[in-house]
Each structure stands twice: as structure tokens, then as C-alpha cells.
């Protein structure tokens, strides 16, 4: 029972991170219909910027996260302007490959600036606490709380503000949104900003329990893709739910199946989904 509780809590922690990353990915997909392969690089940059702010500049964890969110958000906007916007009418293979170009660039950049070594992010919340009979580090509690908070805020923003509503409108119908006078350019940039910001939060929260290194985004982004296919490409609740489903499956799989192969779970899941339903779960329309 003790082990199970511990694993469930672990699943909750990992799931929170996955959900945040998948949310950013699904928002961008909803708006621009591109799978942003460079999203993992934004995640990685988020980790490094928080790391630098804390160790080099010496600011507090939360302030560091804030700076990271802003910087990576702007990086996202830059990416949209320089790469995806010019490619919006290009053949379907091209935007994916350009995204890969950006990914490679950012990873090399990180390695150049920060080196290839694994760095550990110091956290002011390393202490162990007792939560409903489970001993867990405060950082893990924090991950869950902060992630949920971020999701609630995002939801409020999308539902309650005009700008948020226009993002939703545009993801449902691009031409329609353009017709009713929504500035689709602005919305696209904003979406990339949010997407980058979410990635930065996720990376900064998870960095203390994982590590910071140039390739840290690889696995996460792959899994985020699995999640949004699981939850329906472009669907916000789907991304959150899918994130937690994967988080739980992994932490339980690691205990009861094999720790070595826990990273495969996501991909096997995807292979199964797409085998049964080639257009993904909850696909809209056909020809």
C-alpha cells in the first residue's frame, strides 16, 4: 500500500509536468496545425534559464522561473515569426523540418553556452514533508500545486478574457476567426508565447528532481506528442488528462513492470492507439 501510494504520487508529479508541456504543444497545434518539433528545445531553454538565473545571477527560485517564462515565451514568439509564419503555406513536410532545424540550433546553442554536462538545479524546497502518511519532498508537492495553478490560470485566461476567447475561436475555425476581425497574426504569436511559457514552467519545476542538460527535452517532447494524440490533437482537456494518464502509467509501470523499459510505455501506447485508430483518438472529419 505504501509503495502504491508513493508511486501514485510520483505519477501525479510526472503527470503534472507532462500535462504542462503537452498543453503548450496542443495549443500551437490547435492554432497553426503544425506539430512543433522544436517545443522540446523551448522546454530545455526554460530549464537552463532558470538554472542560470539562480546560480549565476543569484535570484530566488520563483523570480528565476518568472524570468524564464518571459524569455522562453519571447523565444517562442521569435520562432513563430522567423520560421513558422513564413512557412504557413509551404508543403506539409517543410514546417516540420524547419522546426527540426530550430531544435538542433537551440540544443547546440545550449551546449555551447552551458556545456554538455548534466547540471543540478538547487531548490529551496528540498526538505521532506509528510503528506497523508506519505513521505515526499516539498519540491514534488510544489510541482503538483504549481502545475495545477498554472492550468487553472490558463483556463481562466482562455475562458474569461477576450484575447483568450479569440485563441479558442481561431483554433476552432481559422478563416472564420479572420472574418470576424480577429488578428490571426497576433493570436498566433500569443499562442507561441503561452506555449513557451508553459514549457518554461514545466522545465523549471521538474529540473530540481531531474537534471538540466541539452538533451533534456527529447524524451519529454516525444511523450508530449503521444499525449496529444491520446487526448486529441488541439484539445486542451485532452492534453491535461492525457498527461496524467501517462504519468500514472509510467510510475506504475516502473514499479510493477520494468524500470528499464518505463520510457517505452508511452510509445507502445501510441503505437497501439494509431494502430487501432490511424487518425488519432477523437479525430474530426475525413476528406
Amino acid at each position: 500500500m505504501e509503495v502504491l501510494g508513493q508511486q501514485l504520487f510520483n505519477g501525479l508529479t510526472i503527470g503534472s509536468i507532462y500535462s504542462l508541456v503537452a498543453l503548450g504543444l496542443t495549443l500551437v497545434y490547435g492554432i497553426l496545425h503544425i506539430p512543433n518539433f522544436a517545443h522540446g528545445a523551448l522546454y530545455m531553454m526554460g530549464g537552463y534559464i532558470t538554472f542560470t538565473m539562480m546560480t549565476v545571477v543569484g535570484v530566488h527560485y520563483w523570480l528565476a522561473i518568472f524570468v524564464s517564462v518571459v524569455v522562453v515565451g519571447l523565444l517562442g514568439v521569435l520562432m513563430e515569426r522567423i520560421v513558422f509564419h513564413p512557412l504557413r503555406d509551404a508543403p506539409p513536410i517543410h514546417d516540420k523540418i524547419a522546426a527540426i532545424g530550430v531544435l538542433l540550433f537551440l540544443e547546440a546553442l545550449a551546449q555551447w553556452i552551458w556545456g554538455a554536462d548534466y547540471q543540478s538545479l538547487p531548490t529551496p524546497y528540498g526538505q521532506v514533508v509528510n503528506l497523508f502518511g506519505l513521505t515526499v519532498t516539498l519540491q514534488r508537492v510544489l510541482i503538483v500545486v504549481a502545475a495545477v495553478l498554472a492550468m487553472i490560470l490558463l483556463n481562466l485566461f482562455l475562458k474569461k478574457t477576450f484575447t483568450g476567447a479569440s485563441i479558442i475561436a481561431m483554433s476552432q475555425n481559422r478563416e472564420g476567426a479572420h472574418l470576424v476581425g480577429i488578428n490571426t497574426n497576433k493570436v498566433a504569436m500569443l499562442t507561441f508565447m503561452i506555449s513557451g511559457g508553459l514549457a518554461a514552467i514545466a522545465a523549471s519545476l521538474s529540473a530540481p528532481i531531474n537534471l538540466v542538460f541539452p538533451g533534456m527535452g527529447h524524451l519529454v517532447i516525444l511523450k508530449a506528442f503521444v499525449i496529444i494524440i491520446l487526448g486529441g490533437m488541439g484539445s486542451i482537456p485532452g492534453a491535461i488528462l492525457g498527461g496524467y494518464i501517462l504519468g500514472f502509467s509510467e510510475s506504475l509501470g516502473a514499479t510493477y513492470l520494468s524500470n528499464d523499459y518505463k520510457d517505452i510505455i508511452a510509445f507502445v501506447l501510441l503505437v497501439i492507439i494509431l494502430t487501432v485508430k490511424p487518425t488519432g483518438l477523437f479525430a474530426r472529419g475525413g476528406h
Partner: protein
Amino acid sequence: MSVLLNRRTVVTGLILFAVLFPFVTRNDYVIHIMTLSFIWMIGVYGLNLLAGYTGYLSLAHAGFFAVGAYSLGLLTVEAGVNFWLALILACLFTGILGFLIGMIALRTREHFFAIYTLCVGYIIYLVIYKWDGLTGGVRGLIGIPAPSNIGPISFTSSISQYFLVLFFLLLTIFFIYRIVHSLTGRTFMAIRNSEDLALTLGISTMKNKLVSFVLSTIFAGLAGALYAGFVRFIGPDIGYITITFDLLIYLLIGGIGTMSGPIVGTLLIVWLSQYLQFLQDYRMLVFGPLLAFLIIFYPWGIVGIFQQWKQKRQARKARSIHQEENRKDEVELDAGVSADQEQVREG
């Protein structure tokens, strides 16, 4: 006719150059790098058949490359199979795996296909990495034998290996050229341009995509097997996504969906990397933006730029003299090349 002759001259010239190359440089290191780039080219041609001519962007090709390499490695090292038999078996095995994966993967389209193959590639990598008992895991596989002698010919010197790989490269190009310039190739391109239209034209898209996919994986497997026999040591890294990206960069920079793109792109980037050695791990600082830039402004790579320029020049010439004759030449020359550039514009 002069244009056609021209092309033949160029091809003959290139082959002649490739054959004379090792005798001209006599530098073992240079020959080594050239041999490696030929191996990459074989993989890039495979990828080109699928992504460039059939319109399916596979991100699993490093995985198939690794499957070919490990099949050869394990067969020769662990099972003591003769190199040549192992080479054939490695291609066969990669092809069978490609067939099984293709059956499922090809039911998906566009983004889903890219993501699906990305995951397949990752699974292959993880299996190689974690299956210590079979593959040696992180330690890799050492002591892969060089190609065994064929009669009096031995493949121990770098020059003989160079020619061996060159032979397979020419074979690959010959196959791909024949396929692209045939009804089968037209069928692939029809699928790339619009799968729905292809279906209404009575083309069994699934069957054709599968043929293209399997061929493409076999070429990747062949490249991998040759790599294993050439470098003699392999680790799980050869199956990692970065290798897929490398292949894609070669293809994109050269020109996706063109016959000569893989050669141009691979040679350019491999040699440029040599000159940028001081950058080492940071070469992507240059190539990443280069790739993105090229995609945005020159979606059909260097060969695409050249073809555009040629087309413009020919159009100008055609306008001034002998309209009819020139056009005929152009069509003959570019029967596949103009088709080369067809890309799906609608999403």
C-alpha cells in the same frame, strides 16, 4: 539532343571522378571521409524515395539504419556468419521489419505519420540501448569483421573499401533512378501530390506506399550494414534521432525529391563539417539555421535553385529561337525532374 548528351557527359564525368578520386588524393583520411559520405548517401537516397517522391516524412530512418548495422554486426560477430551472407540477411531483416512497421505506420498520414515514425525510431533506439544481453547496450558491439575476400579481391585497404561502398552507392542510384523514371515512380509521385486523387485514379495507395517504405528501409539497412563493416564498431547512438536529422539535413540541403540532391547535400555538409571541425559539437549552430533558412527560401535545396535557374534560362532561349525543339529536349531531360518538383501545395 545536346542537353541529353550533356547529362550523359556529366554522369560519366562524375563516375570517372569518383573512380579516380582515391588515386588522386592518396590521402587515407580523405578517402575514409569520402567512403563514409557514400554510406550516408545510400541512406539519404532511401529516405528520398519515401519522403521526396512518395511524400511520407519518416523520422525512423536512423532506427532502420541501426537495425541494418546491428543485424550485420550480430550475425558476423555472434553467429559467425560470412560477411556477404550477413549483408544480404541484414537488408532482408530490415526490409521485413520495415514491412511490418509500414503496414501500421502507413495507415496514418502527415503529422501522425511523422510522429508515429519518430516514436518507432525511439523504440528501436531504446531496445538496442537497453537490451544488453543481445546488443551489448551502451558498450556497443566491437570486432565486426571487414568484408571477406571475394576470390582474389580483399577488402582490407581503405581504397578497396572505398570501391566497395562506391559500387553499392552506384547500384542504389541506378535502382532509384529506374524506379523514379518508371510507372511505379509516377505512381509514388501521384500519391505524394494528392493521395485522394491517386485513389480516384485507381491506384492502390496502401500497396504502393508500402513498396516505397520497404525499399526505403532496405536502403537504410544497407547503409547501416555497410557502416558496420566499414567502421567495425557500432553503438546505440547510430540509432538515435540525431542520425535521422543528419540524413534529413543532407537531403533537404541537397534538394528533396530530386535525383542529385542526396549527393550534393551529403558531400557539401560532410565536407563543410570537416572545415568546421573547430566547431565540433556546435556545428548545428551553423547547420540548424542554414536548414531553416533553406527550407523557407529554397524549399527544394541547392539542386532546386539550379533547376530553377536552368528552367529560366531555357525559357528565355526557347522564346528567342526554335521554340519547339528546345521544349522537346527539356521534356525529355526533365521527364522526372519536372515531376521532381511537384509537391503537394494544398494541405
